């Protein structure tokens, strides 16, 4: 089959990258264990899409191992404004991705490993997969108190979440993926997963916050590599396949034709933000201007990530009403995005009367509006 021989070619390259594991897996059907050489969240999510869409999983199952540089990954039907601190993400240059499976929001960094179990649709069985992971962990460190809950989480010491799960079902195939905290930055995790945005109302899937712990804290001798190897070993044993891991390059079009388009799609604003279910923002804020404090009330409806309806209640005559309505008119239809609002507002300023007082009031209002996004 084409896929196998291409992987073989890829493999010859990857021999240089990571020996001794980089040996081609079994040619017989049954199963395949692959690991991504990339830490780019979009590329790795694209690999999942590719396997789900293009690979024939009838007689084989696939385990995909991957890790990402710092990124926040939200579920298919979630609202990023509700789930994380977007301002902080931008400041720290942490990526935001929306995956195609359901579930809640997670923080990834190189101290977290991701496992994706690909099966035919009929063999979709999340409990089995998680039990496999627990078995692998116990084989590695028998003293670890890890167990699977009925919410498909894995708990350490019965109270700390070390793994979250999500799944995607298609017509003929399905995948179940989960995270596993080995040595992630808990401080960054908790700060980015706390949303500062107020007044949001939506039907998007909410995340259920949980206390987390790293396996490393329980046993400092553990590394991500060890966990990956242990899980791969257990998978290979249970599926009776070669335990060797095949490395895969998510940018290689010859192995994965069409993958770069998938990667690009996952990065588009329309996918990451535009797929947010309809929501509304009803909030107010105080602006301090010279010696007075002003109350501003803002109401917005956001659909497909764009402002459908916008209403700004300002103290009368603080800004010329014509200007206010110009701002509201321009915001309507535009992306609910700080960059878009900044460029929009500053461009509009060019055609306003050239009055320093007016300009500073305008800038103050716009800065506050931008803080909502």
């Amino acid at each position: 089959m084409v896929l196998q021989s291409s992987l073989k070619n890829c493999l010859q390259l990857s021999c240089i990258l990571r020996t001794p594991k980089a040996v081609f897996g079994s040619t017989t059907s049954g199963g395949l264990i692959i690991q991504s050489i990339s830490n780019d969240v979009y590329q790795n999510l694209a690999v999942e899409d590719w396997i789900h869409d293009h690979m024939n999983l009838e007689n084989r199952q696939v385990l995909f191992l991957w890790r990402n540089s710092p990124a926040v990954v939200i579920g298919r039907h979630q609202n990023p404004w509700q789930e994380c601190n977007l301002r902080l993400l931008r400041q720290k240059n942490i990526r935001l991705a929306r995956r195609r499976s359901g579930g809640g929001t997670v923080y990834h960094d190189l101290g977290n490993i991701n496992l994706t179990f690909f099966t035919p649709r009929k063999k979709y069985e999340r409990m089995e997969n998680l039990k496999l992971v627990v078995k692998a962990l116990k084989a590695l460190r028998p003293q670890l108190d890890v167990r699977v809950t009925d919410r498909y989480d894995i708990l350490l010491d019965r109270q700390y979440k070390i793994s979250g799960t999500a799944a995607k079902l298609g017509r003929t195939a399905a995948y179940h993926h989960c995270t596993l905290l080995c040595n992630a930055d808990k401080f960054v995790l908790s700060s980015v997963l706390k949303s500062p945005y107020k007044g949001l109302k939506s039907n998007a899937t909410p995340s259920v916050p949980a206390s987390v712990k790293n396996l490393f804290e329980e046993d400092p001798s553990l590394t991500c590599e060890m966990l990956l190897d242990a899980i791969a070993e257990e998978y290979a044993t249970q599926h009776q396949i070669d335990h060797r891991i095949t490395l895969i390059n998510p940018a290689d079009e010859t192995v994965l034709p069409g993958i770069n388009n998938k990667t690009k799609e996952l990065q588009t604003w329309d996918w990451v933000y535009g797929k947010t279910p309809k929501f509304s923002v009803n909030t107010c804020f105080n602006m301090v201007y010279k010696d007075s404090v002003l109350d501003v009330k803002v109401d917005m409806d956001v659909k497909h990530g764009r402002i459908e309806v916008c209403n700004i209640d300002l103290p009368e005559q603080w800004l010329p009403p014509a200007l206010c309505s110009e701002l509201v008119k321009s915001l309507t239809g535009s992306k609910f995005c700080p960059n878009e609002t900044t460029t929009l507002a500053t461009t509009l300023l060019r055609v306003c009367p050239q009055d320093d007082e007016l300009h500073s009031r305008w800038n103050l209002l716009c800065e506050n509006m931008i803080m909502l996004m």
Partner: protein
Amino acid sequence: VCIHRVRSCSSIRFIKSKYVCVFDKSALKFSHQQRLFRTSAVSCGQIVQFKLSDIGEGITEVTVKEWYIKEGDSVSQFDSICEVQSDKASVTITSRYDGIIRKLHYNLDEIAYVGKPLVDIEIDSSKGVAPEEDVVETPPMSHEEHTHQEIKGHKTLATPAVRRLAMENNIKLSEVVGTGKDNRILKEDILNYLAKQTGAILPPSPKAEIIPPLPKSETVPAAPKDKARKIPVPVSRPIVFSGKDKTEPITGFHKAMVKTMSAALKIPHFGYCDEIDLTQLVQLREELKPLAQIRGVKLSFMPFFIKAASLGLLQYPILNASLDESCQNVTYKASHNIGVAMDTEQGLIVPNVKNVQVCSVFEIASELNRLQSLGSAGQLGTNDLTGGTFTLSNIGTIGGTYAKPVILPPEVAIGALGKIQVLPRFNGKGEVFKAQIMNVSWSADHRIIDGATMARFSNLWKSYLENPASMLLDLK
């Protein structure tokens, strides 16, 4: 991929062929009145209720999260219909039939039940009835004979759509392994069978992007003697272009630009162009680049252009002014906040370097670096984007020589810089030498700026750049 079917109810099977099957409400009304003649449903096709199939893991209910189609849309088998969610699993529901969506049984965020109808699809009548159960072939018609075989006493089960696909590809159903219930043959079984023949992985969805290359052994080369005899006859085919116009509203930033540019066009522009010999500057920059690098700053030509412009503005302050709306007053701006046009994903944005008149070339370079990285990250703040008094646009990085830039209100002048080209020029001794030539195109507001002023400013700016040492004399 939506396949539009031409609806013609000329099939003999339907008694109601008396009526022209035009799908609009008037047809329905008409047939309601003719009750005596109506013997079956008004619509041409049969409405089938597509039920939500089993999700697995004993799940009985899901939430509808997104509809990919709406009532009235055409769908093909395997097209995505909607996305439902159940307990951390997102499921894509695909259509089982080809037809038209007639009813959505749920709104967004409603709970849908497994085994209950999800959508109503109207099946194209000319294709024959396609009920949820598969059809067991009754005495076949002659052309379908080869697609119906008895294997070990079992009749092969397959829907008419699957049979047609097999027939179109000259496949014997007996040779296909069925993976459906009771070994029925599904569409993906035919596709898999085809895939095995060509040795490629063919995805089940017709929307798939990959076109697997056929192994070389498949292409059978024509025998040479056959080739000699055949003369290719050009077939004239009507050229069909199926592209459609796409209209979308102008929103956000672009809307604001429309306003700005409309206002800009009200300004009477005049242009003035010239060519600058940057040979000495190119050399100077080469020398200074590593020094700036050590200090952590990338040094381009722009900091020099910007500083030279500021020195020029000190002599010709009218170019750094602003005209009020009524054209009654001119305000000479004290700060030289020189804007630099940047091309980003969004479009053209113009952040400015503040107070160039008190900045060194290095400081300008450093500030430019900061603005450029913020610009490409989409994180420029309001302060960086407002307060500009004069603008330079380095369109030459993309290409071009001369341009006709548009003044950005409330400014009164703008310069567009073309690309640096190596061209032959004559020196003082009449010898030809290699010169680094860049073209500049200025535009200015003719209401308050005259040609002479613009020309003199340009000459001064040019002299600073052609002989960079002269900048030292006037640096503050």
